[in-house]
């Protein structure tokens, strides 16, 4: 393990009954880097994301996280309060369906401010100002700050979720198909936004997607998964331009050309 990895996983295995979801998966993530995990549905992408973020316990293997002070912590051996604190501050999770993460009965400003309040912020004016600033960052008009999320479009909901996640300046964000279910023009705008934010704020991210174009646009490195195994990993351009493994070749060749 090199000195500066942010997240380092080795030998992760997890079976659901007889179905292997993860088999001896290794992964490393450096600060400020985006790692894409691609593969068909059922290949264990989301399971890997859940295991890396400590939401699911692997049957074997270990995930190390380096905190801002440089100490290594075993994510799955961490006490629950510490893990939850990590999820509230240093980490973020962007779900495919923004409704899973947002509180639909709470205004946009309240949604963005929740993580601040969970961290102990107790000044209404400052929380609100921060929320408005973040809505601006994700290109939502400031006058929508008091509107309920149910009045927002799908793309706006996803952007609101991103603002809510990034408001505490996390160092590591887990994204599960952030552009899934959106139409192509909205997707392009969202990808642009994510790329801008991630590079500006120096956030490291693990991105799960089945869309190779998304992976190529956002990620420096890529992992290709098939039936719980990592079949190929490396620099995104390298893997996608010169796929070695037959499954990767199949994946790359099955992308439709418009």
């Amino acid at each position: 393990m090199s000195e500066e990895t942010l997240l380092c996983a080795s030998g992760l295995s997890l079976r659901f009954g007889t179905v292997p979801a993860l088999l001896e998966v290794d992964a490393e993530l450096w600060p400020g880097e985006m790692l894409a995990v691609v593969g068909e549905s059922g290949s264990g992408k989301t399971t890997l994301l859940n295991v890396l973020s400590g939401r699911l316990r692997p049957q074997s293997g270990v995930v190390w996280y380096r905190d801002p002070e440089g100490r290594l912590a075993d994510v799955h051996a961490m006490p629950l309060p510490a893990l939850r604190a990590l999820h509230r501050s240093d980490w973020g999770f962007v779900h495919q369906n923004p409704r899973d993460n947002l509180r639909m009965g709470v205004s946009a400003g309240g949604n963005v401010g929740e993580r601040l309040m969970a961290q102990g912020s107790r000044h209404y004016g400052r929380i609100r100002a921060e929320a408005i600033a973040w809505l601006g960052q994700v290109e939502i008009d400031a006058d929508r700050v008091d509107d309920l999320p149910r009045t927002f479009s799908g793309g706006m909901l996803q952007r609101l979720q991103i603002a809510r996640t990034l408001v505490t300046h996390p160092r590591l964000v887990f994204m599960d198909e952030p552009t899934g279910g959106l139409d192509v023009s909205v997707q392009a705008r969202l990808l642009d936004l994510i790329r801008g934010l991630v590079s500006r704020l120096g956030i490291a991210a693990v991105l799960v997607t089945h869309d190779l174009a998304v992976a190529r646009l956002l990620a420096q490195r890529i992992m290709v998964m098939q039936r719980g195994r990592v079949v190929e990993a490396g620099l995104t351009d390298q893997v996608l331009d010169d796929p070695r493994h037959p499954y990767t070749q199949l994946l790359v060749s099955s992308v439709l050309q418009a």
Partner: protein
Amino acid sequence: MSSGYNFAYLDEQTKRMLRRAILKAVAIPGHQVPFASREMPLPYGWGTGGIQVTAAIIGPDDVLKVIDQGADDTTNAVSIRHFFARTAGVATTTRTGDATIIQTRHRVPETKLRAGQIVVFQVPQPEPLSRLEPSRAETRRMHALSEYGLMHVKLYEDITRYGHVAISYDYPVMVNFRYLMAPSPIPAFDNPRLHMMPALQLFGAGREKRIYAVPPWTDVRSLDFDDHPFRPARAPHSCGLCGATDSYLDEVVVDDCGGRLFVCSDTDHCETRRGNGMRP
């Protein structure tokens, strides 16, 4: 005192179980302790929790006062007072100063309570986060980890929508800087009285099967924001019977022409003042 019942209606083993729950609750201020709530001879919502707590702590020398929204003369208050007079043979009173145990629904007496007194609150919903987080497993975890940001989201929403926190009763409080607690549906006006109260405060929720407590001289703070401090609300009038300007008032409709009368909700307080010659 009517025969055929054990002292204070409940059997000794039940009272023992209740006392253990109460001791645990006092030891962890604001923490909800589950207990095996019994069927009581009154419907849920009428004070089954409060009556069990009172039954567990009452002794033959105690003097009991029961109030319902401040009043000693409502059906609920009269019935519970009568119940303990019959089953425990204890003395009852309407005077706050004379009572050793005060069972109350939705009010804290206006008269300052002293050390040695016990207030028993009737609680319909002991979980302050119940409206925000439907899962009890999750709210227990939030209490365990002291994760109360969600409650502030509710306050944030109120300020955003109404310009102020629109909770007029059952206003959530932090007890001893640790547990978030529902103070039972007392008006927010009464919240400051819970802070550093010399008397012991016990809370019983019969239907929800929870007991919690605030020991004497415990820090109890109403939740607020630094720039929107907690402000208890009170009707901007004086009492129409005794002229009090600092007590919590009930609004009474007196005719069908829009006539209103504001009177002290604490009847004992109002009567004492009138006995001393106070008039509007």
